């Protein structure tokens, strides 16, 4: 983490889906940067815009979706201005992505070898033999036993954990500078999840890449992330380093998330659920989008949409409770 120039910067990103029934503001003003060797967590529930943020970075948004505003700077160049041909050189080589479901993201009719060799040869000047050699090394790196024989297998012959390893191997094939992991362990069992998280941490140390970890699991966040952005209804609501987030979370939504997970302690308390449902992104309410579910909502929350304000060094929060000191008195410590 010595290198302090961000490798990727996202500035005020807005990605909307222009449907017949109105624009769905899936991502509505997201900004962050990430440095080499750093792990940034993006947390939120379904529909909060975390995956669309990732897809926007990869320029994989297809109509009716559109990046309507903002910049995505990778090594200083705006990816929004790249042509599809230029993007193809970046995707998989400079920025790679691992998806949630390893079964649907591998092609079932080709062997692992064919899929890996194809990826490698698309980006590197290698002949088939060299590419195969590289594939063997990669499978070995991600801990698949007997990699040479395994290359001949089809995806269905792999278990869920092995498929996810193969996906990671493929994503790492060209030593990417940024790896976007979209819920990489959600479909896996805990013991396998532990293996995969360990593997990602080890590879990050060896290869020095930046990782964007998209997840809804705060346990995973606590374990692997350096900084965390919490999203709700397309907007970031809190952004800080991982220790501050767990020790001094500011936003009522973050509190709600933390109280909703059952803790393994001896006293059994009732879970403090967040009541209600996330809002319809086509018709966001006036004011703060979380106000209707918020226990601490004030009258002004239904009127004014709070800005994303820096509260302390490295701690941004979008909440009216922190707009003036009078309001802050209700904040539980």
């Amino acid at each position, binding site marked *: 983490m010595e290198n302090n120039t961000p490798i990727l910067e996202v500035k005020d990103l807005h990605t909307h889906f222009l449907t017949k029934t109105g624009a769905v503001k899936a991502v509505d003003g997201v900004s962050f940067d990430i440095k080499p060797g750093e792990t940034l967590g993006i947390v939120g*529930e*379904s529909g909060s815009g975390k995956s669309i943020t990732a897809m926007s970075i990869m320029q994989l948004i297809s109509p009716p979706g559109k990046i309507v505003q903002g910049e995505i700077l990778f090594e200083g160049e705006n990816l929004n201005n790249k042509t599809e041909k230029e993007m193809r050189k970046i995707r998989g080589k400079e920025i790679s992505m691992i998806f949630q479901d390893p079964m649907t993201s591998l092609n079932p009719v080709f062997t692992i070898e064919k899929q890996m060799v194809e990826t490698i040869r698309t980006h590197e000047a290698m002949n088939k033999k060299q590419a195969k050699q590289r594939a063997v090394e990669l499978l070995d790196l991600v801990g698949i*036993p007997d990699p040479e024989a395994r290359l001949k297998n089809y995806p269905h012959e792999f*278990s*869920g*954990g*092995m498929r996810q390893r193969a996906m990671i191997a493929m994503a790492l094939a060209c030593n990417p500078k940024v790896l976007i992991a979209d819920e990489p362990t959600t479909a896996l*069992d*805990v*013991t*396998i*999840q*532990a*293996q995969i*998280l*360990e593997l990602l941490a080890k590879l990050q140390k060896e290869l020095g890449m930046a990782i964007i970890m998209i997840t*809804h*699991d*705060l*346990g*995973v*966040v*606590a*374990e692997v992330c350096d900084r965390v952005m919490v999203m709700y209804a397309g907007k970031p609501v809190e952004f800080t380093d*991982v*220790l501050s987030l*767990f020790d001094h979370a500011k936003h009522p939504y973050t509190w*709600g*998330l*933390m*109280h*909703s*997970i*059952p*803790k*393994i302690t*001896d006293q*059994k308390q*009732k*879970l*403090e*659920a*967040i*009541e209600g*449902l996330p809002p319809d992104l086509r018709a966001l309410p006036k004011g703060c989008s979380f106000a209707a579910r918020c226990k601490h909502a004030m009258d002004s929350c239904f009127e004014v949409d709070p800005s994303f304000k820096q509260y302390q060094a490295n701690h941004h929060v979008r909440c009216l409770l922190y707009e003036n000191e009078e309001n802050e008195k209700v904040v539980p410590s």
Partner: protein
Amino acid sequence: MSSLLEVKKLKKHFPVKSGGIIPRQTGAVKAVDGVSFDVKKGETLGLVGESGCGKSTAGRAILKLHEPTDGEIIFKGKDITNVQGEQLRKLRQEMQLIFQDPYASLNPRKTVEQIITEPMKIFNVPKRERQKKLSRLMDVVGLSSYQKDRYPHQFSGGQRQRIGIARSLALDPDLVICDEPVSALDVSIQAQVVNLMEDLQQEFDLTYIFIAHDLSVVHHISDRVAVMYLGQIVEIGEVGELYRNPKHPYTQALLSAIPEANPHKQKERILIKGDLPSPSNPPQGCKFHTRCPLAEDICKQVNPELKQVSEHGQQAACHLVKEVVAGH
């Protein structure tokens, strides 16, 4: 408390057949392979394990949605293992199932009213009573009765799960088998549904078998927990005791693998290597020995039986754990 349900040496093997014109059975997937436990009235038994360990199959075999290969199922003191036909149909009133996927388990062409009242129709509950029950059920699961003419697609995942729960309660069952009821839901919604299930258990005096892979949810809702591995129970005990002091190496590894929402704590993690072996060709001896960090020679040869390992009745199936005789 007396046992509502007793399961003894339950087995469910699925035959594997060869191809050809006359298929022959060439093997069997031993999904559930000798599982015994009992569930007391009013308690929640958690059934945990990784995918493929047989926890869902066990649940379905109890409901006789799968015909058990071997073993006994005793429900309210009666052996129901071989119950068929009309008797089985009647029995199903008393045992219900809540499914994992709230999208796939509701008929998209039926309204909420039709979905919830369907079980009562099948059992000839008079119309007036059905209507009364419908509004009560919708009320207790937190839906408004004006929503009864809506279709499932008009609801969110959490609301659909509430519809599924209302349907399972329509016939006043005694036992509800919940097969991963919250794993498809977002955390904030998950907490709502878990709270609802706890309230309903109180109100309707329900007994739950709660099947899940999420160990913290299971800890929250269960009174006792059984840990399954490759079709067998490797450890069973009272929830606090089992989580605080797991005896079986698999339970220990499983519990240590849960990522904890506390960045200050560096967890000592027992990483178990490799994947679950295939249940059609399980390892000899203790089924966990291929991945067990402590395995010894005896583990490769002899499959350990469940034995008592603490004074509070916790049981584990492991050669390396000392047996504790109750009262000593």
